[in-house]
């Protein structure tokens, strides 16, 4: 299982704070996971359409499309940061 977290605007748009997902062999990296989320359609298709920057983290480190995913990982999706 992997735990997927959504923050800020994304959390509201997807109406989801977190979810647990099974690790399939097809979800071997972040770009595959993002693709599968986009395929859910509706708000998911919209958020992951690539119009707005969506940042990703794996185990609390910034990740990119080719960052691999393994069982037990904590994944996060979030918009550009605006703190400080």
């Amino acid at each position, binding site marked *: 299982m992997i735990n997927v977290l959504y923050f800020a605007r994304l959390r509201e748009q997807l109406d989801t704070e977190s979810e647990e997902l099974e690790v399939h062999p097809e979800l071997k990296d972040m770009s595959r996971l993002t693709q599968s989320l986009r395929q859910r359609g509706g708000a998911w298709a919209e958020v992951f359409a690539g119009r707005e920057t969506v940042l990703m983290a794996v185990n609390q480190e910034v990740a990119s499309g080719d960052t691999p995913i393994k069982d037990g990982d904590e994944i996060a999706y979030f918009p*550009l*940061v*605006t*703190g*400080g």
Partner: protein
Amino acid sequence: MIKAISVQTEPFDTAAEIEKLRADNPAIGAIVTFLGLTRDSNAGQRVASMTLEHYPGMTEKALEKILDEAQTRWELQGIRVVHRIGELKPQDPIVLVAVASAHRGEAFQACEFVIDYLKTRAPFWKKEQTPEGSRWVDARQSDNQAEQRWRRGD
């Protein structure tokens, strides 16, 4: 070098943070602090209050990395970062970055570096409450440019 990071809902005490940084270190000749405050308007609209969300765990790691990077770039005696989360009103302090070093040049540069990186790399998000409803604050192009000044060949 003494590093301290705190992410908290409670207000912080700027003077106490500076005191902790100075504490018993006669090698310190300069302390530069950046204090970020909530303004009552943004992008031309009145802001009644603001809510700060963050990614617990990753925030601390991201800040730790930024402080480590500052430490490799400059000769420093200490850095303290405090960032508030939750609801804030205009004039409330949001963030404090305090940097101590023997000489002022390093302290100024490291302090500005830390806040520039924090603004673009630490997972905090602001939501403003305005007379026309609430809105997520957009990332600023100027913050991106500020960060890029510090980029090296890497």
